């Protein structure tokens, strides 16, 4: 079957689901009584989900030996960035309505805003160097640049945890999965150095 041989377009459509869902809910009065909060939170958690999925590709490859997933990593990473940018826009536009004084104050005084902004800034060079041409040009350094996803994901989870009033369940779930995904890498690194 053709879709099975090239599932990338389907994955692309699947990645549009969170956005399509928001449009659907907006059209059907399903965003609740505080729609701005709903939209901002939803875009934020989908950004984190996208980052975790991107980070899961390598461990899954190593654990299962199946190398085919790597083809979809860039798509997932770019979608994570896409939702991150929408999340930022929803904060700047819907939430603050471009009240720059309040935004700058937030940026300096609210650690959760600082960390969120830092996470997105760290992802920017990754998005900009996601093309084949950039990979060729950067050579070995491409890998090093893309290690920035680690601090970005950590900052993203801290951003979420810092915002929550009391119940840390949700941020801890994201944090727990991130810890496992990063832990597997640390484990693999030590295995390699021991073997070498």
């Amino acid at each position, binding site marked *: 079957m053709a879709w099975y041989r090239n599932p990338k377009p389907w994955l692309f459509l699947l990645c549009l689901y969170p956005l399509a869902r928001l449009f659907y809910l907006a059209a059907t009065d399903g965003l*609740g009584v*505080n729609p701005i909060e709903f939209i901002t939170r939803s875009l934020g958690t989908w950004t984190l989900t996208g980052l975790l999925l991107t980070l899961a590709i390598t461990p899954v490859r190593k654990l299962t030996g199946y190398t085919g997933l790597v083809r979809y990593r860039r798509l997932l990473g770019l979608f994570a960035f896409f939702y991150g940018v929408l999340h930022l826009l929803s904060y700047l536009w819907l939430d603050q309505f471009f*009240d720059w004084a*309040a935004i700058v104050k937030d940026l300096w005084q609210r*650690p*959760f805003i600082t960390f969120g902004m830092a996470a997105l800034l760290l992802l920017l060079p990754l998005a900009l160097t996601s093309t084949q041409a950039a990979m060729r040009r950067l050579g070995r350094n491409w890998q090093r640049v893309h290690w920035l996803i680690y601090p970005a994901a950590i900052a993203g989870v801290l951003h979420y945890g810092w*915002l929550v009033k*009391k119940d840390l369940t949700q941020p801890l779930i994201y944090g727990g999965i991130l810890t496992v995904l990063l832990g597997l890498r640390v484990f693999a690194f030590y295995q390699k150095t021991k073997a070498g």
Partner: protein
Amino acid sequence: MLIKRPADILPSEITPEAVYRDRRRFIQGAAALAALTALPAGAALPPHKKGLYSTSEPPNSFKEITTYNNFYEFGTDKADPAANAHRLQTRPWTVSIEGACRKPKVWDIDALIRAFPLEERIYRLRCVEGWSMVIPWLGFPLADLLKQVEPTGNAKYVEFVSLHDPKQMPGQRRAILDWPYLEGLRLDEALHPLTLLVVGLYGQELPNQNGAPIRLVVPWKYGFKSAKSIVRIRLVEGQPVSSWMKAAPREYGFYSNVNPEVDHPRWSQAKERRIGEFLKRPTLMFNGYGEQVAHLYAGMDLRRHF
């Protein structure tokens, strides 16, 4: 009973929200009609009077007020209370007024509702999270109840204890807060005429997710000060330590007056989003009730006593 239980109300008897929002004109019209047909005066009026201090701002809808709630006893998501609060049995229910007073009393909730004349008060509510609503509460001043038990000279503060029953309140199965939910006011705050014990909303009995059968409403303080589903009111000498103070002493103080100049350590309190509005509006000192309550805090450093 002064306010009907929902089960006793036919859907046809409930005032449609549109009529309710337009009630002043409606009541004028009804009064004119009554005069015209010489019906006994007042027969058609709801069994409560219009209270003082009501804002003329348009109230939020019943749906907004009853589907977006912070009531951690039923879960931490805003939609959880509306989904889970049906488990709460609000009858039989007693409220014990006790502690430093000469005439402590355990009230049956229905007797309590009948004992004091109910008033409608349309108050602003400002949540510590940065959103606000306008809510037509139905209740009576807490002062009426407190004066009746005759507080002694040792009564300096009032402590409010909410129901603790994990069987009915699934949120209490997790130690999100130190249950039962505790709140407190200084005695003069508790006796202030703005401070209300609330038993109804939009002219109906208070829905469970809003703190049935009886809750506190202190409109110049952040919403969490207004304890819900109260079972005990204690007059005490020492300043109570509320559940939120215990959970995060750096973030939640005893007073928790709405104050746009004192930010929450993690977010700004300068503005708020009124539910239903797009642009944020500036938050008012004491939530706009400064004229009535500012004198309570004369000479106090509100940055320190946050």
